[in-house]
């Protein structure tokens, strides 16, 4: 059983789409977690790669250790050195053992979430005490240290068992569909969770912490605690995404985890779409993935024209992303979709209240009702009014 092939302009669309969805879901999940930190709460996490790679390393490799313990394959051998051979046998074993496969994946996700939360907690200690510039420098330096340390520690990739290996025996491309389903399921969970949070009173608290620390403190909110919790939750989600990615590619490679791919690109996605806005992040991730995957697809063809530089398309892609970021920061800093002001109740209900109280209650004008009507009137009229522009670009204090 194989997948049908649809060829358009010399590109087989089926594997391309499968690959595209995987990439899109992964980057959107990471960008959403960054949006929660940076867009909604105003903690610019310039060390994002640290949390993602931490989840990938610990979640992925420890699930490999667990598989060795349970199946007994390669017991007593040096897993890190012989991982390729051991994992091959474990994968073959997993075909007959679907429960173990599911267990392994759950274990990897759980470990990743714990590690992410732990790293987030550690990073939150400075994060809640320092100004943004100091915090950015510290987080970037931490991520860079991690990068240099693991790179010098070992340069050979470590293989990781593939829980979805069974499906690859069914035919070419089937495993890709299953991987897509897993990643999209994870993405939906993340999306729904973050939407729930930001639409709740908690979400308005987060924006208050971002926009005016003093005011939120005066209203009895504990800014440090809120920032810490957001960092922990967002880092746990990022780490889980990292673990899923490492299971998907089936190895942990040190070269993968650069600060460009896992810190800069998520920032780019959030900035393109509009910070503090999950729909925007979804749109930004789509643009980004389309450009990235499209270039990757056509790399061979484009590269033919440039003989002097085998990596030319990659380098131009870097320049392109840099240019995109700078252009959007200059031309439309609020992103494609502006952040919308958040309502305490559904808009319909608010409108109804405003209408009934505002027009009918002229005889017994209490100040409160009149005020509500005025506020609602302004909200209805004023797209881009005063309240809007204060929300538009996060992090402006």
């Amino acid at each position: 059983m194989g997948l049908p092939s649809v060829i358009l302009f010399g590109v087989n669309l089926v594997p391309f789409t499968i690959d595209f969805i995987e990439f899109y879901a992964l980057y959107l999940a990471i960008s959403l977690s960054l949006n929660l930190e940076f867009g909604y709460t105003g903690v610019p996490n310039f060390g994002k790669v640290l949390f993602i790679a931490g989840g990938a390393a610990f979640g992925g490799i420890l699930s490999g250790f667990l598989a060795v313990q349970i199946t007994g394959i390669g017991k007593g051998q040096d897993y890190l050195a012989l991982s390729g051979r051991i994992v091959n046998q474990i994968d073959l074993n997993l075909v007959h053992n679907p429960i173990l496969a599911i267990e392994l994946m759950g274990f990897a996700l759980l470990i990743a979430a714990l590690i992410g939360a732990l790293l987030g907690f550690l990073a939150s200690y400075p994060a809640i005490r320092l100004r943004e510039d100091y915090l950015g420098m510290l987080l970037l330096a931490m991520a860079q240290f991690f990068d240099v340390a693991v790179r010098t520690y070992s340069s050979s990739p470590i293989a990781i068992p593939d829980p979805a290996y069974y499906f690859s025996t069914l035919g070419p491309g089937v495993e890709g569909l299953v991987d897509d389903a897993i990643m999209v399921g994870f993405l939906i969970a993340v999306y729904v969770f973050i939407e729930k949070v930001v639409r709740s009173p908690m979400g308005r608290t987060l924006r208050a912490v971002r926009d005016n620390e003093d005011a939120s403190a005066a209203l009895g909110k504990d800014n440090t605690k809120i920032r810490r919790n957001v960092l922990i939750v967002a880092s746990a989600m990022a780490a889980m995404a990292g673990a899923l990615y490492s299971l998907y590619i089936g190895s942990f490679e040190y070269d993968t985890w650069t600060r460009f791919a896992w810190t800069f690109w998520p920032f780019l996605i959030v900035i393109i779409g509009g910070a503090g806005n999950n729909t925007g992040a979804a749109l930004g991730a789509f643009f980004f993935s389309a450009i990235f995957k499209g270039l990757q697809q056509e790399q061979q063809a484009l590269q033919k024209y440039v003989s002097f530089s085998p990596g030319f398309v990659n380098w131009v892609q870097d320049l392109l992303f840099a240019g995109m970021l700078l252009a959007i920061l200059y031309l439309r800093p609020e992103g494609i979709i502006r952040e919308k002001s958040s309502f305490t109740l559904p808009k319909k209900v608010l409108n109804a209240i405003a209408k009934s109280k505002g027009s009918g209650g002229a005889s017994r004008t209490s100040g409160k009702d009149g005020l509500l009507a005025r506020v609602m009137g302004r909200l209805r009229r004023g797209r881009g009014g005063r309240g809007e522009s204060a929300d538009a670009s996060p992090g402006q204090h």
Partner: protein
Amino acid sequence: MVPQYLISALVYACLFALMGMGLTLTYMTTKVPNFAYGDFVALGVYSAYTASKVFHSNPYVGSVFGFAIGAVASAIMYLGVLRPLAKRGSSMVSLMIATFGVDIGFVGLIGIYTDYLQYVQRLIDAAQFYQLGPDFSFGGYAGVVYAAPISVIATVAAIYLLFTRTKFGVAMRAAVENPPLARVLGINVDLVNTISWMLAGGLAAYAGALLTLQLPAGTATGSNLIVEIFSASVLGGLNSIFGAAVGGLLIGGSEILLTLDLGLGFGYAGAVVISVLLILAGVFVFKMKKVQARIAGAVLAAFGAWILIDMAAGFPVDFLSGELVFGFGPNVTPYQQAIPLLIMAFSLMIIPEGIFSIDFRRLLKRVKS
């Protein structure tokens, strides 16, 4: 004859002093940490490489051209990216993200250039190379051993004279302290900022070029050194050029020497000194009168005391004191950047205003009481 490790520590420290001074200059003028700063270092690295390998000259020539290239690149970055964004009213975080974007742009440009070197000039080691030559030698030491400290001293002296003796330097200080007021007084703040940025980029590239005389380097060098450069600048307080020079010297020196000592072992005397220092630091922290500080101080002091007791009890009882004396072996080197990182984290927590803000007399009193 001075031992080799001291000499390499000196050169390393001086290079970080130069780079730290540059980063501090950019921070002082625009109040934005420049994440693309490592790429200016990379520009210097590749101008030295080009001078040495393509034109068969020496890296010193490259360092002069590197200064010019770094200065121009830095000015373009300031005038082309940061100033328009700041004029538009972008927040600090947006500006930080913009410098991140410039960083990836520079990586692309440098990547194209190294590809050109590799596949057109047929220099196979362009992406990662060993130390460059030829370097002159004088009195038994390589030239860079003189060049690096002299550059630091000359830069510090030049900046000092500029700031105190010239009209332009005073204008510069005014523009840094209070830009609106300086503008009212007729000082061209944009010009001052541009020149500060040029100086900063030039210093970074110059230091990068000198680095190739001492250490292996490559495309990743600039990014990898970011940890040390930021630490040097933060330790100096981010607002003091001379603080950054001192910070760079401390960071570079301590990183090399401590890594070496952790690898090879401190010897008996060194281990005793460390445990005594740990106890003193613990007592100092304990006096801060905060619950967390008390716990941390007690742990530090107990740790130091434990090492001392271990050693007194006869030594290989415990692996820790034994490792301190005999060393952890060469596998500590991948983690050597932990030292500047820790220094940076601690200085941010304890002395955010930098090393010059410490009132040493009060400190002494506090320890005594």
